[in-house]
């Protein structure tokens, strides 16, 4: 039986694969317009705003690399390695222009440090984070748009 594909536990409602391609889901305060990711649900965190109504928004699918690094050693639990033995992966902090914010994410599989530079364009993809017995847990990742290998 094929494994079910589910958002990684803890990231339910944080991103979507429906509609016009994958996107992170945030909220926008209907009072002041501030965008939040992960979603703000109760009170607006703008100190000058007493808003408490939010609409769900899809964040920009493309952004530019603000900075990046990698994880040469396996992080401790609750991290779950996708492979045995552990394979290092890259992490990027990505600036989204419209939202004027930086969002972290792992870098898409098959891409590493050599494919990244500050200022380079990346786009959002959804890929497996790890698999367990029943399911493939998926998460958003950042993928270089120029195919990498600068």
């Amino acid at each position: 039986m094929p494994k079910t594909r589910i958002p990684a536990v803890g990231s339910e409602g944080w991103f979507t694969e429906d509609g016009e391609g994958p996107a992170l889901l945030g909220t926008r305060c209907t009072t002041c317009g501030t965008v939040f990711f992960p979603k703000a649900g109760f009170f607006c965190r703008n100190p000058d705003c007493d808003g408490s109504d939010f609409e769900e928004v899809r964040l920009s699918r493309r952004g530019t690399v603000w900075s990046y690094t990698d994880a040469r050693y396996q992080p401790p639990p609750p991290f779950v390695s996708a492979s045995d033995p552990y394979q290092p992966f890259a992490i990027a902090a990505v600036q989204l222009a419209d939202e004027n914010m930086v969002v972290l994410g792992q870098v898409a599989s098959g891409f590493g440090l050599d494919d990244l530079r500050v200022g380079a364009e990346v786009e959002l993809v959804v890929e497996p984070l790890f698999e367990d017995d029943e399911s493939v847990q998926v998460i958003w990742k950042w993928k270089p748009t120029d195919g990498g290998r600068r």
Partner: protein
Amino acid sequence: MSGDVFVLGVGMTPWGKWGRNFAEYGVEAAREALSDAGVAWRDIQFVAGGETVRNGYPGYVAGATVAQALGWNGARVSSSYAACASGATALAAARAQILAGFCDVALVVGADTTPKGFLAPTSGERPDDPDWLRFRLLGATNPTYFALYARRRMDLYGATPSDFARVKVKNSRHGAENPRARYRKAVTDEEVLASPVVADPLHLLDICATSDGGAAVVLCSEAYARRTGAQVRVRAVSTVTPQFPNTVIEMPNFATDSAAALAPPTLSFRDSIAAAAYEEAGLGPEDLSLAEVYDLSTALELDWYENIGLCKAGEAERLARDGDTALGGRGVTVNPSGGLACFGEAVPAQALAQVCEVTWQLRGQAGARQVADARVGITANQGLFGHGSSVILSR
């Protein structure tokens, strides 16, 4: 405010990895601080503890745990948790009690026993805790964030791994002269650059370890200080939070605040931590003799040079290259204790350890690592989830 608060005594265990109960380190540090202050434990009226989250319930009520271990004396008590800033938050609590006139003499103490390896979140399935989520969903450890800042310096200012290594070399020379440091061997930049990369561009020797240790400070009122001859004055304790929108990615967050609807503040969070301390003290960077800053990584120490106003953004590498921040250099000496590079981090003790070092320096008791004619010192540090920490002391 009714005058200033004074540092009457300081105490600190050596830092290491012994796995003893954290309260033992707390008691050892407290006894030294009491003895240094010439105050009997029975005479302490208020105890402020910095909490640890890795030692079960006694860690959460650290003030009471250490008070009980010293022998209940009926003192009033508080415990504070602010991650790396816990010690400063405890210090702020004790200072406020003294300034409010509720007590004359207080003990502030922080101690920790840390596990091996990366600092990891508390165990269990806790998908509502951002600290749990960043490990599960991103595999983002603390060094991940330090490395993002380091790479940013390389891109913005042309910093190199050698610039980062130079900070470690400096701190290791300082720490070699500090009997309480855990790592007391001077290292070379070749050794730093040859150590394994943990999170590119940072090497193992660019990143601080985690340690066991305890530190304690006895604070007193101005009137009490006059009777005892205490010389070291607490000029400021800054425990500020960030201002929205905070546009620098911070541990353990997934994203920064959005600055789309509200413009970011003029000062970054780390800049604002020291700025608040300077304002409270009525002093500025030009008054400093030394600084103890939180060098979780070598590159982060360079960020702090700018955050505490030693130089403009992008000039920190030059300061380090010219040896300005080294003992005997022409600038403000940074981390004469050896810093986290030589101590490793004992979370709730660390902000107090910084205060201990500045106190010894201002009293001229720092031995071979003494900063000449030290008059004013600042500490700077930042705790997870938006806890600023900066203390200014003067003599």
